[in-house]
């Protein structure tokens, strides 16, 4: 026996615009896989239903948020990844926080914390900080730019599937918001001993943080995987 989701069980209808107009026969091809879905955390069998835009579908058994379709997820992701990519470089290169003690000043950028740890031969910690605050955010942004760009322009690419895998695995290891909290705590500690100056790097970093948060919140993975599958299928048929 199959449990129904709380929402009316439409069949797969979340490939709403671009692709449906171009390859109308692809919908039926995708549907023959299965009309069911399973909850990723409790394995409850569900009807593959898609809530309307802006609505949320929860698993009736364990309460997991199953899907929350957003308006124009591909376009939004594409635009936000471009903006994030542009903002990444000022936040990496411009000074973030400056401190003056007894007349001598010191400014820090995102990378200089890593270098300082390296110089103290704390290289395992330096590598972790470098990965979580610089490399992984950059790779994550590049991947979401590549994926959403290909989907936006309807370009099939055999690497799309791999890029999606990597992006999903990186999700948890992008720690910009934790780094921001680290900056706040460090500043509060330092403010007690010396005056601080805040630079453009910090403002760029805050903007980058807001954009990446918006990006991960608006990225509809289900829709992305579906688009990719349709693109690859259309590509294979064209050959």
């Amino acid at each position, binding site marked *: *026996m199959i*449990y129904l989701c709380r929402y009316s069980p439409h069949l797969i209808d979340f490939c709403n615009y671009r692709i449906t107009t171009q390859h109308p026969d692809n919908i039926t091809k995708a549907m023959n*896989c*299965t009309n*069911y*879905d*399973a*909850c*990723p*955390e*409790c*394995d*409850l*069998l569900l009807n*593959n239903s898609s809530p309307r835009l802006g609505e949320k579908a929860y698993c*009736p*058994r*364990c*309460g*997991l948020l199953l899907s929350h379709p957003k308006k124009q997820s591909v376009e939004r992701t594409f635009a936000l990844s471009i903006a994030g990519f542009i903002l990444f470089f000022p936040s990496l290169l411009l000074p973030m*926080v400056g*401190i003056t*003690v007894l007349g*001598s000043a*010191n400014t*820090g950028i995102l990378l*200089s*914390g890593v*270098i*300082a*740890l390296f110089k*103290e031969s*704390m290289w*395992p*910690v330096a590598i*972790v*900080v470098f990965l*979580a*605050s610089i490399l992984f955010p950059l790779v994550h942004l590049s991947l979401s730019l590549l994926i959403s760009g290909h989907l936006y322009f309807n370009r099939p690419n055999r690497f799309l*599937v791999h890029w*999606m*895998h990597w992006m*999903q695995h990186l999700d*948890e*290891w992008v*720690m910009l918001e*934790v*780094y921001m*909290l*680290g*900056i*706040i*705590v*460090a500043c*509060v*500690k*330092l403010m007690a001993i010396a005056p601080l100056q805040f630079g453009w790097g910090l403002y760029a970093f805050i903007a980058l943080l807001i954009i990446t948060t918006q990006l991960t919140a608006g990225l509809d*993975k*289900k829709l992305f*995987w579906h688009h990719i599958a349709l693109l690859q299928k259309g590509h294979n048929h064209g050959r």
Partner: protein
Amino acid sequence: MAANALKQGFVRCHDCGLLISTAEHSASCPRCHSELHARRPQSLQRCAAFLASSFFLYIPANIFPIMTVNQFGAGDPHTIAGGIVELFDSGMIPIGLLVLVASILVPTSKLVGIALLLLCAHFRWQVNARRWTTLYRIIAFVGRWSMLDIFMISILVDLVNFSGVQIIAGPAATAFAAVVILTMFAAENFDPRLLWDHQKAYE
């Protein structure tokens, strides 16, 4: 009552979420080509291995100094707990509470929580699985926030580097970063569906 997808003959692709009938006997997902597993392979063993190693590293992380403040030649080493006590003493209560939660309460409760989840799944305790899944979600969500201390140290080490005053990272920083990462791996390898698989109430 409701039934598990696996018992109905379906396997969900871990990477792309496609549901595949077990009757097709395919080893990889037709959509994203990743290997298919009904449950995470060796979920409990891997999770336990990561958990055990983070337990061992948890001890040096708390005993050794996480950073040393060098003032005109005199070194003043701080442990994780010492840094929090100092924050409280200088009147910075909210920040002190924040660091207390992120670097002591969260790692400790994470170690205990993952151990409980492992025991529950291994001994097939009959529990309210929904509540235990919530516990799993909290553990998976809060894990990364413990990196706060490590990032803060990297900023302090970089900024406080004058001829008279210096901050130097201590050996506990390495151990603590390893604890955070290992517990994140442990949580990632734990499959919450194992909590539901043997619940008689849902069969």
